[in-house]
């Protein structure tokens, strides 16, 4: 494959990154998708749109998020100088809000009066419910019935924020089924409804649009690094489910050819079996949810459930731009297993006093693998894209800590 002059010009007018992306949706949705593309094309060039986005990003979300030198972690690993881009400090605790803010401003611009979203772990659902409360728009969140049980605190948060939660029992009752159900809702309520997709996937223009909203992460990181160190970083590391936090960090650096870029997928129990969510390293190209991309699937093209300890990573697909970046070789894609992410999670708590989400714990797991062998003047940025409050129950369970009995003792 030939090397493009720039890695930042995609997608083309058909929404393609190489062979990936596109608009594989039912005819009922097609006119809406075209509307959305047109409106997004206009909004993107409208200074007033970005003024409002930037104002809310600053005052409501708390941007810019700090670029933090993780000194104790750096010492512990004994190699590369590690910085965290701290998107876990955003309002609602993750990078998801950047995208929700952008999309709800677009929904308002388009005169839509009802918002729907899908969610897996609940982070995108909470972020969507949050911006809906901010703008007083009714919000329906589709969430797999299995996830509703696993993520009770986020379900309650969404309720408090005024959202209606619809547990999805169809299929296997997880994130991909929640996305199917959201698409079914959208097809049924085309006139008034805006679908806020939570990651850089789905039919064009979603992958590009979500990336553009999340690129605030990489743009800030670049400026902060130049100010702090007077040069660009040597490497970037981020975790990947659908891949929006990673793309947000990576995109502004894609044409800086000396910056090594690494995406870390969820390796679950390992890639030998089917218990993982590593679409790029363990899947093959296919068509799902409106785009062509790498998917976990069987020989008949049936979609296989992803598995990860992190509910935010167990999606069987990935954003199409990542698929392209993999095939053209600009970004390296690796994976970290559940057990490695758990180790990294604890390391971060212990050395930095930061409880990370299980998703970026995968990125950190990879950092711990490569940082020790890198020179001390190698500068690395890891996207700490979410905080771990939501994960303490899962982690407690895996570490054999009986939280229920402790709570029982204190209330007696």
């Amino acid at each position, binding site marked *: 494959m030939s090397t493009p002059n720039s890695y930042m010009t995609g997608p083309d007018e058909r929404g393609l990154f190489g062979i990936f992306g596109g*608009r594989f949706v039912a*005819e009922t949705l097609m006119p809406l998708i075209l509307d959305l593309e047109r409106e997004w094309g206009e909004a993107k060039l409208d200074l007033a749109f970005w003024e409002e986005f930037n104002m809310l990003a600053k005052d409501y979300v708390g941007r810019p998020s700090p670029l933090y030198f993780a000194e104790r972690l750096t010492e512990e690993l004994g190699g590369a100088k590690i910085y965290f881009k701290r998107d876990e400090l955003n309002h609602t605790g993750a990078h998801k809000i950047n995208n929700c803010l952008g999309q709800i401003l677009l929904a308002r611009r388009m005169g839509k009066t009802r918002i729907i979203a899908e969610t897996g772990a609940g982070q995108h659902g909470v972020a969507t419910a949050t911006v809906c409360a901010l703008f007083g728009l009714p919000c329906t969140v589709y969430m797999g019935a299995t996830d509703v049980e696993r993520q009770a605190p986020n379900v309650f948060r969404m309720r408090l924020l005024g959202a209606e939660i619809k547990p999805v029992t169809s299929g296997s009752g997880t994130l991909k*089924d929640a996305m*199917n159900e959201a698409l079914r809702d959208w097809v049924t309520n085309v006139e008034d409804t805006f679908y806020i997709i939570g990651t850089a996937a789905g039919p064009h223009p979603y992958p590009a649009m979500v990336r553009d909203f999340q690129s605030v992460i990489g743009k800030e990181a670049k400026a902060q690094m130049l100010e702090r160190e007077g040069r660009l970083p040597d490497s970037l590391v981020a975790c990947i489910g659908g891949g929006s936090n990673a793309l947000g960090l990576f995109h502004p650096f894609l044409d800086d050819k000396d910056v090594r870029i690494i995406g870390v997928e969820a390796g679950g129990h390992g890639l030998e079996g089917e218990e993982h969510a590593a679409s790029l390293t363990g899947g093959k190209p296919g068509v799902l949810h409106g785009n062509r991309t790498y998917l976990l699937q069987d020989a008949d093209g049936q979609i296989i459930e992803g598995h990860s300890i992190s509910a935010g990573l167990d999606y069987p697909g990935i954003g199409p731009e990542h698929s392209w970046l993999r095939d053209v070789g600009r970004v390296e894609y690796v994976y970290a297993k559940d057990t490695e992410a758990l180790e990294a999670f604890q390391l971060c708590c212990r050395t930095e006093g930061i409880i990370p989400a299980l998703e970026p714990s995968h990125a950190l797991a990879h950092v711990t693998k490569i940082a020790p062998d890198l020179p001390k003047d190698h500068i690395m940025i890891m996207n700490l894209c979410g905080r771990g409050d939501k994960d303490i129950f899962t982690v407690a369970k895996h570490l054999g800590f009986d939280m229920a009995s402790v709570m029982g003792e204190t209330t007696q």
Partner: protein
Amino acid sequence: MTTRIDTKFAALKAEGRPGFVSYIMSGDPNYDTSLEILRGLPDAGADIIELGMCFTDPMADGVAIQLAAQRALAGGQTLPKTLELVQEFRKQDSETPLILMGYYNPIYIYGVDAFLAAAKAAGVDGLIVVDLPPEEDDELCIPANKAGMNFIRLATPTTDEVRLPAVLQNTSGFVYYVSITGITGTAAAQQDAVAAAVGRLKAFTDLPIAVGFGITTPDQVAEIGSVADAAVVGSAIVRQIEANLDEHGKAKPGLVDAVLDYTRTLSQRLR
């Protein structure tokens, strides 16, 4: 090129009646039972048969067809087995047009050229692939047309007149008008609105117009039949399969007859 679908609509026109299109999911509730139902459909009044290709993520389908796909998948149905089913059907019936309906990924994974060759050889006449709008015509529609297979496009209430020519451009066989904005087997189609929409389509194309999504009762079949060239029923027939399963999901005795009898009550309203 004249296909079985063209021939059938010409015959229906000569008879002066609308056609009845019946949908079942291939492999639902298992391979053998669905073959038996398939073989009985022409006698039960199906002028054209739509055979669903199961997929794990049927995003345009309502609960009835979602469950049918899950039953088929649980029974081990695959795209190659669906083609085998068509081949078996064709041993006894060389006239009834048969259309495969489903989603793109299993076809993409099978390989487009290999799939078209195998489908043609098995006796498939047309394809309806829900997640391939005209914007993606290069994927399957154009190769299918070249292979002599009809590619039937869905037109919907959201397809405006600016968009219609693009939707109709590479469509052949007939146009499938989706009578509601929504998924299969949910809201009922309103006869007036459908009549208006069919009229609008007729101004743009000479192809026959079949109407589906949301037609569930014999009366609705008659109503839609009076304003369109054919009426399509899927979910309501598939629900008859569901109603004739025991608590373990196995076919009860009499399932095939129950499904075919029900189909007959629908199709008779157009004769």
